[in-house]
């Protein structure tokens, strides 16, 4: 049975933060969602200390084998999340991981403290791709900022802390090592690559926010390379993601040392992608086991 930081998982496929709203999906698909929940753990959309409305449209743009999003982290804020969303999310049949982001260590600490107190939360994912308003540095671009953040947060929670790295750095392994030194329990990667497109109809940037983040199969080679290099640098379990859309894609991440894979953009194409990918993985493993003794070395 796969596990992540001591959390037992029915299979090694979870969702990527911000790509599945289990509350909305339950309204759309009913309780069939719960009977047949596609992920082995559920990661919430990133929540921030205060509510955010998100960016102005246009927010998504399709690109070759991928998409750019500039959603802008719309969420109810920490208190809204705890009061309104958490009671609904605890009804999910899988462990819950809450993703948080803040712009000061104090705010990060407040979020982690409040969330860690909730028994229904199995782990906390720290989305560190936002600038620190004090240092001006993007925490996740900087190994020592990341280390310091983890040192500050580590004592506040017994729950596993997963650090989600930004891929827009020269050396993600350095940042991962900083997170490990600071006391992180796991590294998840990749978040989206910075990307832009021009709308051919207007000649102006396609996204309301000017630019956004690229995801989907187009980025899979970058994700795999970052998992490989982080794997070589830290001992922590890795949650690998970026363009996973089939069991074969997931296998690439496992071959490079990921403990678990997360599915993001593919959920939009297939609301049950998580379960399908877990099944594809299992049946390819079974096929390997069966074919092994009869392996034709011709």
């Amino acid at each position, binding site marked *: 049975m796969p596990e992540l930081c001591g959390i037992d998982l029915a299979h090694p496929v979870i969702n990527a933060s911000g790509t599945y709203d289990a509350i909305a999906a339950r309204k759309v698909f009913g309780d069939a*969602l719960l009977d047949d929940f596609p992920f082995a753990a559920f990661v919430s959309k990133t929540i921030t200390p205060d509510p955010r409305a998100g960016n102005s449209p246009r927010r998504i743009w399709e690109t070759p084998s991928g998409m750019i999003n500039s959603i802008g982290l719309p969420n109810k804020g920490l208190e809204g999340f705890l009061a309104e969303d958490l009671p609904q999310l605890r009804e999910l049949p899988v462990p819950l991981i809450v993703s948080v982001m803040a712009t000061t260590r104090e705010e990060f600490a407040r979020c982690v403290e409040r969330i860690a107190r909730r028994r229904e939360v199995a782990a906390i994912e720290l989305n560190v791709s936002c600038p620190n308003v004090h240092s001006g540095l993007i925490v996740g671009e900087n190994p020592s900022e990341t280390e310091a953040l983890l040192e500050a947060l580590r004592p506040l929670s017994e729950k596993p802390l997963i650090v989600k790295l930004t891929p827009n750095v020269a050396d993600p392994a350095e940042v991962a090592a900083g997170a490990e030194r600071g006391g992180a329990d796991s590294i998840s990667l990749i978040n989206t690559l910075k990307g832009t497109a021009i709308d051919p109809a207007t000649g102006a940037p396609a996204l*309301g926010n000017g630019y956004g983040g690229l995801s989907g199969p187009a980025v899979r080679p970058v994700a795999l390379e970052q998992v490989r290099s982080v794997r070589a640098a830290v001992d922590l379990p890795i949650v690998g993601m970026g363009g996973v859309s089939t069991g074969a894609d997931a296998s690439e991440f496992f071959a490079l040392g990921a403990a678990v894979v997360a599915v993001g953009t593919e959920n939009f194409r297939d609301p049950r992608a998580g379960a399908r990918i877990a099944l594809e993985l299992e049946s390819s493993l079974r096929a390997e086991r069966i074919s092994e003794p009869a392996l034709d070395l011709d």
Partner: protein
Amino acid sequence: MIAPFGRRLCEVAANRDSGGYRVVSVVDRGGPEPRAGQFYMLAAAERWGARDGRAFLPRAISVAETRPAAGGGVRLDFLLDAVGPGTERLAALGEGEGIWITGPLGNSFASPREVSDGAAGAVLVGGGVGVAPLALLRRRFSERGVPHRVLLGFRDRAHTGGLDLFCGSSGVLCPEVRLATEDGHAGVQGRVTDLLLPILVGDDAASGVVYSCGPPAMLEAVRALCAEHGVTVELALESPMACGFGACFGCAVPKPGGGFLRLCVDGPVLRGDEVEEVSHAYA
């Protein structure tokens, strides 16, 4: 209306021309009958992504007509305007080809009575590929005996896509349908709003609800006219959708008071006072 969980592989039963658009019929053995205004996320099972990696995401398409399918399930008709790689591929699907569908999704048009106390009649205002959800709405109103008029706008003789969805089985346009064409080849010469205005200023306006779907400029004109004349209006909007089930937050439409709606779960049908102005930015 709860949708079966997940996408399902269905078969294309027919694909016919409709005045420049295509009507693609899909047999859905596993889903419920959709309501007027609802949509599905569609993707061809084969050769999706055939134009340099696009279409990649599924496409949101309104259901234009539905009836029980021979052998069980429902038959869904989609009206397709081939404007890019996704709609082109969908419009080219041949009989027997596979199509992934998720749905029915989103909310639906309400009856006049549900929307507005004492309202009895309906005015349906459509243009372009936006006539699709109104076709199903009109049939439902006919079945339920809701008095209604239908105003449709078309550009010219070559662009009458979807018009036949408003014909009875005899192939003759239903009597409650009136046309405006920009070239004057049929109906009144002009815009569909030219047909709407006299109704809004007429005696029975107060007891009517307007239902509209079409290009953003048309929707905005309809919304503004109805607001001006104090008539309740339901608008079926579009916005860029990656998922259709509330997962991506991509389909944001600004709310009048600030903030955003997710059109896929909060819409696609919104009351006129739930949007500030219908804009190209999201539609």
